[in-house]
């Protein structure tokens, strides 16, 4: 498939006659990236699949309102992150999880997931990451695994580069403390 620039893609998306074709291109170009963004937050493949579908349906319904003030990537990432966090909050409410134990319910997901093939060290790392609050976890995932630039993260998350750097370094420290305490 030919690679489209953002301008070319937007042109297709803005014309009602080519909008569906343009959206198919959007899905093929972004589905994998968005999948992993969601998966790292919610851990389960099934939940990720559901959320990813919701993301694209919301994007389809609202594409006519997209004004191009931000990049398409940024816009899609924001929808994906919002949907992920909404999902996690809903799960916490359903499980009556206390504030201190924010993400412990996700550990069960990790244990039972057939689509997780990490070794013990990987599992320990994931457990450490789960001790972080959602937003900090997001920052850590985006920086550590996706190696995203702080400037790009800033645009997506609406947080300053300085705050993101501080958040990431603090996250690394917390994780390493967890690893040491687990020994």
């Amino acid at each position, binding site marked *: 498939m030919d690679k489209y620039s953002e301008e070319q893609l937007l042109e297709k998306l803005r014309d009602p006659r080519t909008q*569906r074709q343009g959206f198919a291109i959007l899905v093929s170009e972004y589905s994998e990236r968005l999948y992993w963004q969601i998966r790292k937050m919610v851990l389960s493949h099934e939940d990720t699949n559901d959320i990813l579908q919701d993301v694209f349906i919301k994007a389809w319904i609202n594409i006519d309102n997209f004004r191009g003030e931000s990049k398409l990537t940024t816009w899609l990432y924001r929808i994906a992150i919002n949907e992920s966090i909404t999902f996690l909050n809903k799960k916490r409410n359903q499980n009556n999880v206390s504030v201190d134990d924010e993400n412990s319910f996700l550990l069960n997901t990790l244990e039972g997931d057939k689509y997780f093939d990490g070794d013990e060290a990987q599992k320990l790392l994931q457990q450490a990451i789960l001790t972080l609050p959602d937003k900090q976890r997001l920052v850590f995932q985006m920086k550590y695994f996706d190696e995203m630039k702080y400037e790009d993260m800033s645009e997506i998350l609406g947080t300053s580069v300085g705050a993101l750097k501080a958040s990431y370094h603090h996250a690394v420290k917390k994780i390493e403390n967890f690893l040491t305490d687990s020994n």
Partner: protein
Amino acid sequence: METKINKLSEIEKRNPFTVPEDYFSRFNEHIMARLPEKEIVEPKKVSMWDKAKPWVYMAAMFMGIFFTIQLLTRNTTNQVATISSTQFTDDYWSTVQITEEEFYQYLEEQLVNDGYYDYMYNQVYMN
């Protein structure tokens, strides 16, 4: 012997999560089939009159304002003229040496004298 991990750098940086085979290609087809249909609305053709309408309305509004101002200022000018002539007359009587009553008396005397002269002329020259 169990290896103790203290640093993040001691853990291999890789994605430990996997997906079912062909998941992404199947997902793309599935989501496109799920998208609700949207009504294609043809762009409305804008006629010349529709384009000109706002300008015409604005011009009419300014014309209306102009004529209203004209009407209001014309009455005011007439009043000013009337006021000025009255004021002039009032000012005139304040500057002359005789009173208004004396002036009218003078005019009446002139009329009487003119009538006398006419009579005399007719008597002496016309008869």
